[in-house]
C-alpha cells in the first residue's frame, strides 16, 4: 500500500471532507489502486515537453471595459442558505 491513513486524512482536510472511520479503508484502497495505475506515466519521456493546460491556443482575451447590467443583488443572494441585510451570513470567523 502506497497510500496511508495519514495521506487520506491530509487530503480530506485539503478537500474539506470528513471521511468516517468505517469508510476510510475503502477510499484508501481505491486511491491506492488508482495511483498504482497512473504510475504508467513514468514510462513516458517528457523531457523537453511543454505542459498543455488548454487545447486551443487562446491567450489574453480582451473585451471593451464598459459598464453593463449585472445580476441584481437580491437575485444574486436568492440561493444563499443564510443572508442578512444584503450579505451572505456565516458563523463568526474572527475572534473578538
Amino acid at each position, binding site marked *: 500500500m502506497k497510500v496511508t491513513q495519514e495521506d487520506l486524512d491530509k487530503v480530506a482536510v485539503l478537500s474539506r*471532507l470528513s471521511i468516517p472511520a468505517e469508510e476510510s479503508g475503502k477510499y484508501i484502497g481505491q486511491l491506492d489502486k*488508482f495511483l498504482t495505475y*497512473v504510475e504508467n*506515466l513514468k514510462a513516458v519521456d517528457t523531457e523537453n515537453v511543454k505542459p498543455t493546460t488548454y*487545447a486551443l491556443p*487562446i491567450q489574453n482575451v480582451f*473585451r471593451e471595459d464598459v459598464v453593463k447590467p449585472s445580476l441584481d443583488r437580491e*437575485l444574486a443572494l436568492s440561493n444563499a*442558505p443564510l443572508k442578512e441585510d444584503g450579505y451572505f451570513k456565516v458563523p463568526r470567523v474572527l475572534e473578538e
Partner: protein
Amino acid sequence: MRLYDKPAHVLHDMLVKKEITSVELTKDVISRIDEVEDDVKAYLSQTRDEALKQAEAADARIAKGEEISFLEGIPGAIKDNICTKGITTTCASKILEHFVPPYNATVMEKLQKEHPVILGKANMDEFAMGGSTENSAYYPTHNPWNTECVPGGSSGGSAAAVAAGTAIWALGSDTGGSIRQPASFCGVVGLKPTYGRVSRYGLVAYASSLDQIGPLTRDVTDCAHVLNVIAGLDEMDSTSSAAAVPDYTKSLVEDVKGLKIGLPKEYFTEGMDPDVEKAVREAIGKFKEMGAEVIDISLPHTDYAISTYYLIAPAEAATNLERYDGVSYGERVDGADVVELMTNTRSAKFGEEVKRRIMIGNYALSAGYYDAYYLKALKVRTLVQQDYTEAFQKVDVIMAPTAPTPAFKIGEMIADPLQMYLQDICTVPLNLAGLPGISIPCGYSSKHMPIGLQIIGKALDEATILRAAYTYEQSQNFRNEMAQLGGKN
C-alpha cells in the same frame, strides 16, 4: 398517429405544412413520458405547464404565417448541469438540490431565440462524473433498449430521453465522453464539438479545460441543426473560439469519395467486445465501398490517456468544486465555525464519486506530488495532442469505436471505480486534444444493444465529421428503429 418517434426535421416540416400543431406534438411526447418514464427515469424535473405554453406560442406564430426556426415548437430536454433561469438545476447532486439559477447559460439564451419547447432537466452522473448515470444522487436512469442496462453517462438522461421518445432532441455535456458514450449505448447521435466551439457560460464546471456542451439527437440532420443554434463566440466565455461558424446543414450531403479515414490500432483494444469490433469494422468497410480511403495509423500515447485524463480532470474538479462551501448558494449543514460548516456541508451533500475525484485531484495537486502527477499529466497531454496533429497530416478523419462494449448492466461496474474509468479509453483522448467527435449508431450486439461508431475530426472541422456521419447514416436504417424498452416487458 404518434409523433414522439420522429426526428426534429420531419416534425419541423409537418409544423410548417400545418399537418400537426406543436401542442399536439408536445402532448404526444408528454403521453410518451407518462407511458415509459417510470421505467426509464430520464428526467430529474419536468416543466410540463411551461412546455405547453411554449407550444401554444409556437402554434400562434405558425398560425399567423410567420416563418419558424428549426427547433420552434419541438420538445427537447436539457442536461441538469446547464443553468436554466428559474428552473431548478441540481447537477444530480444533493448539494444543489434547491438551486434555482438566477441566469441562463449562453446555450439557453441561444435556444430561446428559436422558441423550442423545453420538457425538463435530464438526469446525469453527479457533476458529470461517471459513465453510467448511476452516480446521480437521485436515481439511476435505465437504458431504453434494455432497462436492466445503464444508458451510459454522464449525459445518460439526455441520451435515454431521445432514445425512448420522451424528448425529440437534447443537450448534454462531454468532458471525457459524456455525450458520445451514452449516445453509443442508447443508439442515438451525439456530438462533442471542438473545445471552444460552444460557450461554456452557465455550464456548471467540472473540468474547465475539457468540458463542452453538445447535441444528442435522433439523426445527423437534427445534430447539424442543433449545433447551428448553440455554436459561436461568447464574450462571457473567454475560452470560446472566435472562428467563424459555418452552416452545418451544408454538411448534410452524401459524399465521402476520396475521404481519407485513419484507423488507429490503439483504439481497437484487447478488452474490446467482439460485437463492437465487428460492427465498427463493417461500418468502415461500408465507407470504403462508398469511395473513402482507409489508412492504418498509430496514436502511440493512447495508452496513457486514461491516466492523463484522470489526473487532470479531478485536479480541475477539485478546484472548481471548492465553490460548494455552504455560503453563497447550495445546501448548508451548520458547524461550530466556518471550516466545520464547509466540511459538514460537503461531507453530507457530495456523493461518493465526487468525493473520490476531489480527493484524487487534491492529492495530485498537493505539495510533493504536483510535479509527479499533475505536471506530468499536462506534459503527456501535449504528446496525446501531438499524436493527433501528426495523424491529421495524413488523414481527414479518424474512426474508432465510441466505447469498447455495448451498455453494461446496472450495478455491474459501480463497485470498481478504476474499471469504470478504463471504459473511457476511446473517448477521453479527444477531450485532452480538444477535438470534435461524433458517435452514430452502426449496429447492434448479439443481444440487440446499440453500438456506436466514433468519427473524430480536426479542430473546428465539425463540418467534415458531420458529412461523413450523414453519408453513412443515409446508407443504413438504424435511425428508423426506436428503442422498445426491452428487458422488462
